């Protein structure tokens, strides 16, 4: 279903109205999380409305960047020319309670375990 993008060395994020703040934050080396201004709930991935209180007002709150590994996979075969296998993708639960998907750097994949504390880098 998803139209295949033309080949790049790395797949670039698709940016749009509702997530541009997140990617601008990343560009400036800051991890920001969408926070509802109505009820204060954090949410990710970014969306226009708060699913709890249905407020349309939100801010991009800086994250501590700290969290724990919630789950992980290791690609043994590369699915894309931009990535050299093996490499590990982690699902990190941030202190704010939301989960983000990321890569694990500077760590041997065989030592990774669920619950391991991690910190964001750019």
């Amino acid at each position, binding site marked *: *279903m*998803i*139209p295949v*993008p033309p080949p790049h060395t*790395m*797949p*670039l*994020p*698709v*940016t*749009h109205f509702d*997530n541009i703040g997140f*990617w601008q934050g990343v560009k400036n080396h800051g991890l920001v999380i969408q926070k509802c201004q109505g009820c204060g709930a954090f*949410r*990710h*991935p970014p969306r226009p409305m708060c*699913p709890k209180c249905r407020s349309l007002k939100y801010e991009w709150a800086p994250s501590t960047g700290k969290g724990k590994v*919630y*789950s*992980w*996979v*290791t*690609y*043994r*075969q590369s*699915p*894309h020319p*931009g*990535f050299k296998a093996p*490499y590990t*993708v982690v*699902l990190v639960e941030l202190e704010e309670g*939301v*989960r*983000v*998907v*990321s*890569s694990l750097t500077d760590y041997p994949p065989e030592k990774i375990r*669920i619950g391991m504390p991690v910190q964001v880098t750019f």
Partner: protein
Amino acid sequence: MPTIKDKAAIVGIGVTDFSKDSKRTQIHLACECILAAIKEAGLKVEDIDGMVKHTGDGADECRILRSIGGRNLNYYGECRYGTGGSSSLVLRAVMGVAAGVANNVVVYWTANDSSKRVELTYHVGMYMLSTSEAEQLSFYPPVGLITPEGQIGLIIRRYMHEFGVKDNQFGWVPVVCRENAAKNPAAIFYKQPITIDDYLKSDMIVDPIRALDCHTKIDGGMAMVVTTAERAKSLKQKPVYIMAAAQSAVQGVEMMTSYNRPVISGLPETSNVGKELFRVAGVTPKDINVAQIDDSYAPLVPMQLEELGFCKRGEGPAFCDKGSNIRLGGKLPLNTSGGSLGEGYLYNMNHIVEAVRQMRGTAVNQVKNAELALVSGGAGGPASGLILRR
């Protein structure tokens, strides 16, 4: 209270060959299987007044109608979400005939996934993405999470962690599916059974997912005709009644990537589909004689068995262990045609068709005296399911 229970029946099925390259267009496959299904039902092309399709299917109802020379359709609709869509389409057809909007609704699905002779639909034009596709492309490929194996792998890893499942415990599902496929001449893996050792030796593609955990892409098309239970009685085939059909999407759902809900090691959509199916049908998991479970990735099978109530949470891998419960003659024979792992991946459509054959008593791996069949699709995203009876 209005209900769809027993209001509709499947009266015709049509199937093309399954292959690695069909050497035909999707619209060709569609015409072939639809005409076969209509003929099998003992109907004529002009009797068809409804069609439901998968959104991404390049063969659309208007072009099919132009090719096969139909009159007009009074009921047509679409649904997306891969394997979760297949039973949703049957639900749509049931609604149409039960509400008196249409007489005979064709449900079809074609794929040229293996040969990649894929045709674009009208709406997939100039690289426009739907909101969920954009969301997925925003956050996952940039960090290397590109394939569905990896996406579902994060969920499977968590399931293994929470319930202490070892990575060699999922192997019995592919073994049993291939065992069934080996006896099914239509299957892509006909006469090619595997052993548990083959499974353990197979490549780890995305740790924890092995090559033999994954479905096989094929080219092929399948169609069925749904009509009212009343009309079904006077048609050519023994009717297979649709006792219940259901679909579900739950807060936090994404296609394979529902990472932001409190618990990700379960399949809440499948759980809701199960509850609704058993509520509408008025039966319990114990009454089911044969099940066709979404096996696009083998580890999802035990998870679905748990969510559907065939065993307790965390006990799915033990239920499947050694295959004795799930093979022909066992407590709950699964995927008797070979499923996506053995017969071929046609988005669970082949699971529905196989359930129909089981109810007719014409399956190659027939479960003796099978009276009730359950179909579950869409594990890891929006889900759907069916309960069929003789």
